[in-house]
């Protein structure tokens, strides 16, 4: 079976060990985690965990079922119709072309967010595949550091 990429959204009870239950499930059963983000859901005692993973369809089905089995898991959403966004921060030396980079950033839904004495930082928030393109496009400006944020997703 062919490998597919899937974004799985998990709503969990916000308790101290819940992330280790989820990451441990993936590690213990040999499932792949591409990115993982966690944040509390406002005004609830729940958290939202977004996991991007890869595997054949049977494996993806297993992952979803195994996630469901965990006691603090309320909901597992796996949807092909997800709006996905990922953020990336890129640090450049001050000598780099600010104008070029700013134009690039705005083309990818971002901009320059910080300028210091010897560096400046660009930020982009876009679909994961576009973020990947952006990272490739800025490579020629010799970035000092790149930090990607992991995928967050919401059902359409």
């Amino acid at each position, binding site marked *: 079976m062919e490998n597919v990429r899937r974004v799985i959204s998990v709503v969990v*009870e916000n308790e101290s*060990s819940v992330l280790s239950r989820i990451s441990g499930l993936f590690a*213990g059963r040999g499932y792949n985690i591409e990115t993982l983000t966690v944040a509390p859901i406002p005004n609830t005692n729940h958290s939202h965990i977004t996991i991007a993973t890869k595997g054949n369809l049977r494996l993806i089905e297993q992952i979803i079922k195994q996630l*469901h*089995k965990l006691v603090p*898991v309320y909901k597992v959403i796996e949807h092909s119709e997800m709006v996905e966004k990922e953020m990336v921060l890129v640090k450049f030396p001050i000598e780099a072309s600010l104008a070029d980079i700013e134009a690039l950033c705005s083309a990818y839904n971002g901009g320059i967010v910080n300028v210091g004495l010897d560096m400046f930082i660009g930020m982009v928030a876009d679909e994961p595949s576009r973020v990947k393109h952006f990272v490739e496009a800025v490579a020629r400006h010799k970035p000092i550091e790149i930090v990607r944020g992991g995928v967050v997703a919401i059902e359409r």
Partner: protein
Amino acid sequence: MKMNGAQMVCEALIAEGVKTVFGYPGGAIMNVYDEIYKQDGFEHILNRHEQASVHAADGYARANGEVGVAMVTSGPGFTNAVTGLATAYMDSIPMVVISGQVPLSLIGTDGFQEIDAVGISRPCTKHNFLIRELSDLPRIMKEAFHIARSGRPGPVLVDIPKDITAEFGEFVYPDSVDIPSYSPTIKGNQRQIDKAIEAIIKAKKPLLYIGGGAVLSNASELVRQLAELTQIPAVETLMARGVMGAKNPLLLGMLGMHGNYSSNMAMSETDLVISLGARFDDRVTGKLSEFAKYADVIHIDIDPANIGKLVEVDYPIVGDVTEVIEKMIAGLKGKVNPERYLDWREVLERYNNLHPQSYIDSDKVIKPQWAIERIGELVGEQAIITSDVGQHQMWAAQHYPFDRPRQWINSGGLGTMGFGFPAALGAKKAFPDKTVINITGDGSILMNVQELVTAAEYKIPVINVILNNHFLGMVRQWQTFFYEERYSSTDLSFQPNYKALAEACHGIGYDVTTKEEFDAALKDAIEKDKVAFINVQVARFENVFPMVPANGALFNMMLPPKTEDNSKGEK
């Protein structure tokens, strides 16, 4: 009522109807043991090793279906319990294990006897808790028992820091649980069940594939009714022995790596697998691509994650086996023609006549299979049989005439050597009037041999029949077949005097080399009503047959020899 956390633990256990707790005290759990001393709501059995405590609680749960309870201290007390948790987890046994933990203020400081119990036990428990506030304790105890016994059962760990057991607070034990994120599917979708019924009616060569879930769900009577009504032949997994009853003409036997010929052939040729609480374990399926190759699959399981995990399923039904079979029987009544499967049953009967489950008996030496059959003849239905892991386990599963579920207690999923003796103690506590026999080997018995002392002290008279071939037999068998007879670390010729060992621990011991001595020893052990070791010298090089080599196709079985192979000589 105001009380300390330790007393709350005891009150919760009493409220849950717990009669027996198996455990071992230590620093972090001492407050609870102080309260155990003061109460008389339940009995505490002091095993001589924490692993044995957990296996004993497990054996108790397997024997009577209630939640087994064990109690251990922090650090090494807990880590010793891990094998017991994993054993229960793999076989879905309802159990609550309570462990002490260092005080909250010391957690994370590498304190004395501190270990991250919830971290370690996460992959081998159904769920676990670390109690951080005394006010959570009653709720968590209630939830632990609920989670352990509901849905697909399993072990639950409750880790309690020492300062919480000392703190005082108000105790109100909740009547019900409220875990919105946890609601197992029990009922089974009627539309799916109807489709499955249609498939059964249309099938030509259907087969009931019965797993441990049928035992856990107490579905034995219904499974027998389903078979009786439809006249569909049945195979049992290792965990399901006893569900159909040995005398049932529709039972072909056990399937899998050491399944009998007709069972494995039935699975290879069936056109409709009806899986009742089985999970298509690799020891059952052999090579997956050849497993039930010509069949559609109806898979009934309370755990949706089991369905479609290994085998493509045509009729998935998530639900409790009992509930689903009830509906199936109702739907099949009057609609199914039992004559329809007559040809199929005849083919299978012919397979069984061709290669029955057999061995070649001997006058010179006791064959392990004979010993097991003999126990069956002498105590049969009224005994509970536990076992350790290895050749003796497979022979017991093949040759003992199990008549009812929960009569056969063994570690199937994890395959834990050292399980049988403490599990026998648990089973005997659950059913003091039944004869409880642990069929074991000279390798396994030493892995929890200290339980002789527990059994003697508490007068729990279980009988250990040691089928002694002076080998780690199953590994030796693989070395014979697949490693050109290089017996690397499997020769156990150097061994203790088992009779003297039993006697040194206030039990009773027997050395047996002949069939007459075997009968006499077993009868005497039952009469003496004392913990016993019956050390039986058996044929050294006997192999378990049939055998499907690992990852081979089920129909490619190595069959038992028709005549005795004497090239190995009886040493």
